[in-house]
């Protein structure tokens, strides 16, 4: 069977959709079709991919308007009687075709205070942690940095607040650090100020697109928001913070 793919071709200056017809077979994913088109019809069609198994987060794009990993989107899920549109993520500047400039994400991450563990628990320099105390952190650490949540978040996509808001990916990165049982750093002040957690109005669009099914909003952003509130508007919060610092000395 032949299907038509409307793929966005162009660069930062100009571009538009172009139609490609290609043979499709059972079990194929969108990335297979794109690679097939690249090999046979459009050798210079730019796209990123590595693992083809939803593990590296390279192949993010918008398929029929929805942010997706191309390698995990089966053609059988799509109505093939109509052309399938494939276009680059909209929140980031286009470099060429399906490849966008996601370097902002790397700059944002670099500014987040790194992990700072407490002193080791055992004389051999190791720590003790219970599995139930790390389940949540492990959930956040499943993130493959596909940036699809950043792509869909209206604060970034529609309002272009890249300078004031770090986006859902990095909110859960902060959450993973803050909820890490060994960590002693405090990141609450910048969450409120430079990282702009207040801009998130809990629409949960990020959670819906996350290919790792991380509960970004419920398990990450909302608890962080609570911590910010506790710390800034609640004297008891100040007390706990002081105590935490003392205990970690």
């Amino acid at each position: 069977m032949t299907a038509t793919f409307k793929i966005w071709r162009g660069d930062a200056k100009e571009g538009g959709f172009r139609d490609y017809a290609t043979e499709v077979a059972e079990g194929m994913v969108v990335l297979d079709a794109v690679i097939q088109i690249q090999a046979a019809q459009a050798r210079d069609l730019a796209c990123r991919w590595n693992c083809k198994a939803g593990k590296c987060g390279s192949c993010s794009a918008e398929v029929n308007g929805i942010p997706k990993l191309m390698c995990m989107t089966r053609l059988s899920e799509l109505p093939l009687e109509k052309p399938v549109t494939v276009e680059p993520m909209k929140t980031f500047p286009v470099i060429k075709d399906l490849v966008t400039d996601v370097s902002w994400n790397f700059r944002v991450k670099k500014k987040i205070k790194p992990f700072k563990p407490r002193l080791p628990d055992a004389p051999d320099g190791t720590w003790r942690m219970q599995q139930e105390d790390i389940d949540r952190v492990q959930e956040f650490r499943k993130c493959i940095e596909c940036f699809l949540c950043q792509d869909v978040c209206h604060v970034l996509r529609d309002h272009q607040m890249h300078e004031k808001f770090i986006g859902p990916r990095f909110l859960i990165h902060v959450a993973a650090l803050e909820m890490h049982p060994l960590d002693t750093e405090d990141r609450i002040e910048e969450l409120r100020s430079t990282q702009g957690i207040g801009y998130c109005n809990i629409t949960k669009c990020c959670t819906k697109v996350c290919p790792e099914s991380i509960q970004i909003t419920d398990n990450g952003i909302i608890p962080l928001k609570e911590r910010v509130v506790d710390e800034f508007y609640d004297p008891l919060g100040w007390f706990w913070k002081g105590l935490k610092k003392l205990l970690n000395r």
Partner: protein
Amino acid sequence: MPDYETFEHDVLIIGAGGAGLRAAIEASAAGVRVGLVCKSLLGKAHTVMAEGGIAAALANVDERDNWKVHFADTMRGGQYVNQWRMAELHAKEAPDRVRELEAWGAVFDRTKDGRILQRHFGGHKYPRLAHVGDRTGLEMIRTLQDHGVHQGIDVHMEHTVLSLLKDGSRVVGAFGYERERGRFKIFGAKAVVLATGGIGRAYKITSNSWEYTGDGHALAYEAGAELIDMEFVQFHPTGMVWPPSVMGILVTEGVRGEGGILLNKDGKRFMFEAIPENYRAHTADDEEEGWRYCQGHKDARRPPELLTRDHVSRCIVREIKEGRGSPHGGVYLDISWIKQKMPNAAEHIKRKLPSMYHQFKQLADIDITEQPMEVGPTTHYIMGGVRVDPDTQMTRLPGLFAAGECAAGINGANRLGGNSLSDLLVFGKRAGEYAAKFARENQHGQINTNDIDSAAREALASFERSNGENPYAIQKDLQETMQNLVGIVRTETEMREALEKIGNFKTRAKKAAVTGNREYNPGWHTALDLKNLLTISEAITRAALDRKESRGAQFREDYPDKEERFSKVNTIMSKAADDSMQVRLEPLPEMPDDLKQIIEENR
């Protein structure tokens, strides 16, 4: 000479997987300026796909474990052609390298008393793999990446290196291009570390990504370093076989570590049939004992599914060849059967193997808690690579180091699962440390601009041919050739044929044509990658021809047995003065008595 953008670093690291990142961290901690070049975005390297775990004798789960047992297991797995010194360093240092990841924020699964949990894996006597479900590689690369970016390392993402630059015999930098704009760059460095990973893209069915084109192997070879053990290519026994578009994608050995069994189309558990002599004493007598082993009973021995990968792959090929395969040309791997043994089996499987569950559900419509998977061998790893000094990881070229999969020696004829991630850490660290030392003791070298101009001209030639060949087509033909003629089962006639074909592909590659411009042009990138792919394909084939025996991952149908005369030699290759590829056999370094004794004690 046209103006090329030039960067200067004390240490330049090529590749940002586990080994490259670990080297970068170490070098930068030693106080030198570090540059890191990688083909993809940071954090996307192949390490991210490693699933099972990091092998290290932490002895958290079984207190009988220690570095000596790990050393003996590694040597046995490698059929004793490993470089013993690397295997020794690796076994001794892996535990510290794992603990240090925890200090940098990695969150491993835990034992009941709160320590790092370890799981069983093929060829390891005790549960030894520190892991995070089945996404250990992601945890490792993210931890290194997040730790590394706060150390002031200059990262050049989406850059490809085309050649190493030399001043006399010394390596003094690299020449490459930025994929985004297609512009050439010069990287001057006092020391260069290759950490480029493997060669899987030379084969049609592979678990490796497009990046794995043997760059470090070929760059080192072209510059005058030696390659060793290139005949040993690991075919992982369990890759997906259906649907066709996912063929080759890895199914972690962790499935078997958690109790998964291999069955043929008649439902027979065929792995019990041919247990190799040197593993008989370590293998379960029956299914019950095998299951008890997976459940952590210390008196039980491993099920035959957890024998080494070379052996399991060959058994699977035998079943398929003799007509007992599954409908899509594989065999069955079943973990769902454990529901007979435990309540909540489905939950247990989803917790222990979440990404496998996800992968099969989404890509193949299979629920692994209910149905068996179909699997078959897939090109996964190359034991061979750049020859290095075991302690410093320096090649025979001053200033050139190599670590991780592109370096060789630790694994011998076959690598044990889990020994790769630990290898990346142990030798990544060492390469970083000694490269930094070399950089402190030496000045920048002279860069020869003529070399650069000719490399640039060569790189652009494919744009000038108007109706040459499609580079993708050449790559595909090469992959078919290597798959069919230099695969799991090899013969002299087929490999001679492969060599001839590789010669033809070289001619065709010189006529490859690309369309479009230099900006983010995958067709051009593919044309450039062909050179390295062809070099390493030739190296694999020549080395495999010269080892006229079957050992570990190399199986010769025309020489089906191990031969005494090959038991103490490595194949070494280097580029001769007339540009031809030279192969020679070289005796292994003599092992000291104390290590020999450790091997004897662990027979």
